[in-house]
């Protein structure tokens, strides 16, 4: 089912006839299992990038037996080129709070946390006030749930859910071994739902508009819409909510400057799509999934520099605990430098590609596993720029 580019207004919509709080009141009257069924039916998948079905995540956590459970909103938006959660936090925080509260009601949690990247602390002043009001409102209504902010400290890897828990627990932000998964043992080793900011807002909105209307948007594999952070060589950078399933060509027709040679879809850890593949590339889980970052590069950009920047970023932001990621990232970075300088032959790029295959299957977490995405897509499509 081919879609075309369509702008949507769900996330930021302000419906005067039905406030988020009204959605909350209504939803808390419904049986929890019914809410889960709605979410599963809606086909909503996590908007952080990994795309796990949200309804199932809530269901698994609900099914765990534990006195203590947690809801965590992952607002550690650290992927280079992604800035949509900041906007959501700033403009519609109540929709996040409501999503968390609904989740808490469904799974049986009494505490929720918003883990927000340290760089967004400037938002805290206004957010804290809104959160205090919201918490007070919950208390007044007799809802046994409170939400707290936790500030991140600047490590990219802490956006990885298990590293985020470690960080929240006051430890080094290092990913854990899995299993166990968060639904079984997350924050403080208790069953935990951890959702991206945008995902939580969609849960609120699905409770508001019903799964049917949500399902009308998108494709079979990628239901609904998504907020995109558009940056780079575009005359109209910014935040846009678009229906999922569009070809990249549609996107560039709307946002390009007429000279785009590549789009990095999904941030530094995503895929680089060259101009010749724009028409064949679908944005969605059947094509290239994305956490929302769309970076446009025109012909004035050196793709060597782009890749070099990404590799520098990963070399610095790897937590450093596992070998494939810690050493692999350094080898990739130094490797393309050596090829550029002529210290290594162009064929060395093949050795490095094989290394990314190992990193993809042997690194401990998504960070190391995904470094091969930008590496291979840039090296394959812009080999001459890497070598010469």
């Amino acid at each position, binding site marked *: 089912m081919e879609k075309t580019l369509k702008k949507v207004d769900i996330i930021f919509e302000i419906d005067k006839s039905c406030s988020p709080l009204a959605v909350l009141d209504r939803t808390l009257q419904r049986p929890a299992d019914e809410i889960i069924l709605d979410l599963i039916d809606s086909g909503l998948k996590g908007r952080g990038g990994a795309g796990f079905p949200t309804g199932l995540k809530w269901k698994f956590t609900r099914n765990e037996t534990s006195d203590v459970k947690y809801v965590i909103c992952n607002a550690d938006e650290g992927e280079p080129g992604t800035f949509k959660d900041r906007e959501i936090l700033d403009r519609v925080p109540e929709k996040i709070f409501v999503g968390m509260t609904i989740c808490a009601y469904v799974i049986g949690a009494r505490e929720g946390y918003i883990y927000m990247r340290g760089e967004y602390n400037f938002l805290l002043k206004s957010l804290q006030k809104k959160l205090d009001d919201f918490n007070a409102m919950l208390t007044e209504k007799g809802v046994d749930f409170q939400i707290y902010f936790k500030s991140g400290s600047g490590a990219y890897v802490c956006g990885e859910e298990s590293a985020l828990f470690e960080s929240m627990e006051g430890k080094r932000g290092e990913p854990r071994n899995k299993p166990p998964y968060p639904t079984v043992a997350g924050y403080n080793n208790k069953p935990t739902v951890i959702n991206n900011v945008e995902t939580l807002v969609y849960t609120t909105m699905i409770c508001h508009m019903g799964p049917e209307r949500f399902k009308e948007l998108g494709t079979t594999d990628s239901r609904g819409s998504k907020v995109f952070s558009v940056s780079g060589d575009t005359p109209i950078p910014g935040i846009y909510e678009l229906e999922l399933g569009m070809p990249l060509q549609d996107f560039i027709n709307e946002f390009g400057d007429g000279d785009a040679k590549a789009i990095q879809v999904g941030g530094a850890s995503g895929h680089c799509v060259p101009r010749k593949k724009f028409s064949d590339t679908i944005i969605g889980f059947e094509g290239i999934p994305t956490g929302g970052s769309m970076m446009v590069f025109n012909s004035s950009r050196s793709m060597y520099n782009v890749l070099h920047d990404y590799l520098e970023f990963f070399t*610095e932001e790897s*937590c*450093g605990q*596992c070998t494939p990621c*810690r050493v692999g990232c350094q*080898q990739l970075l130094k490797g393309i430098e050596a090829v550029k300088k002529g210290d290594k032959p162009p064929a060395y790029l093949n*050795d490095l590609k094989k290394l990314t295959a190992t990193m993809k*299957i*042997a690194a401990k977490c998504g960070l190391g596993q995904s470094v091969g995405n930008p590496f291979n897509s840039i090296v394959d499509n812009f080999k001459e720029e890497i070598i010469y």
Partner: protein
Amino acid sequence: MSKYQVNLKINNMPIAVEEGTTILEAARKLNFRIPTLCHHPDLSVAGNCRVCVVEVKGAKLLAASCATPVSEGMEVLTNSEKVRIARKHIVELLLSEHNADCTKCFKNGHCELQEIASEYRIGEHVFLDLVRPESKIQDISSPAIIKDDSKCIRCQRCVRTCEEIQGVAALGVINKGDQQRISTFLNKPLNEVVCTNCGQCINRCPTGALTERNYIEEVWNAIYDPSKFVVVQTAPATRVALGEDLDIDPGARVTGKMVSALKKLGFNKVLDTDFAADLTIMEEGTELLTRLKKALVDKDETVRLPMMTSCSPGWIKFQEHMFSDMLDNLSTCKSPQQMFGAVAKTYYADKINIKAQDMIVVSIMPCTAKKFECERPEMRDSGYQDVDYVLTTRELAMMIKQAGIDFNKLEEEHYDSILGESTGAAVIFGATGGVMEAALRTAYEIVTGREVPFTNLNIQPVRGMEGVKEATIKIKNVKPEWAFLEGVDLNVAIAHGLGNARFLMDKVNRGETNYHFIEIMGCPGGCLGGGGQPIPTSPEIRQKRANAIYSEDEHMTIRKSHENPEITEIYKQFLGQPLSHLSHELLHTHYKPRKRY
């Protein structure tokens, strides 16, 4: 309740194992060896080196077998093409950031990375050399431990050891990404942080990143120096472990062969720390009884109970850093090593007519903290540094190899006399609970005139590998001069490993205990698990060494310290009696509070 059984296949061989078993453990049951580096039987699972990855059919990712529990119907391949390529890559990556200067490395031949590299015959270096010049600057600030970051593979075994087993956390991970490394608080040198020099990190370091500061050359030079009279003393726990570094299975008692080897190496006299252990019991046992009398009869409120043993220099430094308000609880007795040194350069030097300044005292210790201890300024009561050099069990094994001695073929020999006679009570100093048992054997007999009421003198309640042990001995029918102890329940406790020590100290601090006497050893299992003992270490190996120690005890003719004839002699001829003025001068010491940062 028996656990649920999980059925799986490893390399097409079916196996059923208990729920919760890891793939690695299951594979070992089928005798499939999977290489590991960050995994250690004493430590929590890290899953960070990734060399143990295996393929699980149907899974996109390889699984770290050390960290992945089995599941029903799982099909695992430990040596598929995917696994081999990935594992080789990972070893190549580790080597690319490793200063592979193997021939110059102290761990040459004992390095787990070297072993894997040799198995995979990593030839031509595929990847770029990432070793940073600045990482090659070693931290040589500590008299006991040398840290070389250029050899570090970031497995974090040392970090987990220091935190989980020892509760010290002197080592930690700093920075991230390519800058990540193992360091100390504020990156200070090891001698300026809370490091207790216990060396447990060395025992678990898979490479040469953490090693003991070795004094092999200094000792050879002393032996070759004709103007020096070099005496050597051997700690109780070395004789049950030395063989492990010389192709003998763990648990073998090699006392006689060790003595023979030391004589062949050229030491002028081969003597026994066990003699000093007996001496320690006389002093410490008397000190305990004296403290009890002061507390119970004289109602002297300045007397601190429970009294705590002071044999373990790692424990002493730990206490000085972490519980400096409890230093008065420590027995003032020096450790056996230092009592030996002080007596050797006074009483013994006099006896054999050698000037103290011409005597070199070398210790063979299961311990790295002893290297620190012998350099403490308090340890110069003979007028000279009482003990000159401390070698670990491992260093001795190296000297034996260097000298071309075929250890296995050596005839057993006896220690020289004097300062060579010892008892079963002394040898059990090497196991957790041993000092307590030795002290009780003597103290009970002093007080009651009878042997301790345990079959064959074996005080079972204080033995074993439990982290914290407690026992109560009822004192009955005492001699008239000890009437104040009649009917008293003597409460004792034992901890080994500093993590357990901390647990026990916290309990004491909270006033939840009524102990009279506590034995603490800094290392797991006591000295037999010391930081200077042969590598590897594991619960099984330590148990075997413990069995050997207790068997050594049973084979001794004399098994109570106060019956050692050389001890009787030294009091008669030299010291007078326990806690005499001279004893205080030579055999006792004091402690100093140290900061935590």
